[in-house]
């Protein structure tokens, strides 16, 4: 693993950026999915017979909430890919 001369700062900042991108980007979806799950549990506790419908709706809602987290994952991959291709030889 060798670093292209003069690119040390780009490597360091790029790695930091990828980490921050994932860390901050996972924050929002985590809170959102937690909210969805807690409300679904409340609903199931109130009406246990609607558990199947609620679970299905909860999964779809969580998947939609998750997409912002997935976007930040893709951006982090792009940064890592850039580093792997051009900075590290």
């Amino acid at each position, binding site marked *: *693993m060798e670093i292209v001369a003069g690119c040390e700062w780009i490597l360091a900042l790029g790695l930091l950026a990828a980490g921050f991108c994932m860390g901050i980007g996972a924050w929002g979806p985590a809170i959102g999915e937690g909210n969805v799950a807690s409300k679904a549990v409340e609903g199931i506790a109130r009406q246990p017979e609607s558990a199947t*419908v609620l679970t*299905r709706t909860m*999964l*779809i809602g969580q*998947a*939609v909430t*998750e*997409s912002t987290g*997935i*976007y930040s*994952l*893709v951006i982090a*991959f792009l940064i*890592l*890919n850039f*580093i*792997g*291709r051009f900075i*590290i030889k």
Partner: protein
Amino acid sequence: MEKVFQSIGRAFELVTIENMDSVNQITWRIGKVDLVINVTTIIMTWIVMIIIILFSYLGVRKLKKYPGKVQALVELIIDGLDKLIKDTMGEVGRKYLPLIATLFFFVAFSNWLGVIPLLKSPTGDLNTTLGLGILVFLIVQGSGIATKGLFSYLKGFLEPLVIAPLAVVINLAGEFGKTVSHSFRLFGNILGGGLIIIVLSDLFKYLLIPPVLHAFFGLFIGAVQAFVFGMLALVYITVGRGE
């Protein structure tokens, strides 16, 4: 401490080199356009298709009133999906059952294929998922035109009419954004799960951890994502039909 850094460096190498540069690529030059073909993805897709054909063939080869094991499994899944579609769309939705069931089976088997050593999930490649996303996009628009008629379908993009010029842009962006998020969600989940499996397994020296990770990221997340992919396609079609 030195060892930790070394293993992190090794994990980084694994991630960037083995997974980001698709290993088998053929470039096809037609005129001035370069067509890049991912051989690995195509082979894996064919394997998935063979598995689905075999599964369906074995399931319905000898239909009996008291079903055998495979027939019972196929009936269970198809019946569940049928009921689900009827709940969401009503009786008209049943003509979309083949589409949704095929999407579900294809995505589920593709996700589960990554669990087997030496095989890769075709859904871990953006080209596959984007292809499926565009397919769903075209079907949504087509069924919208078929049910509402061309004029009122186009008029749907102008609503709310008070801010019509702005509404067109917002509606178009929303329509394309749906496709992008639909395909990127599947791609990101599968690729991210695969990378986490590789990196964590390497950090733990392939001791005890890989089966657990494969069970969670491969089987569980794979099944959930396949279900979500099919359900979202169904929801988009329902919204597109305007019912």
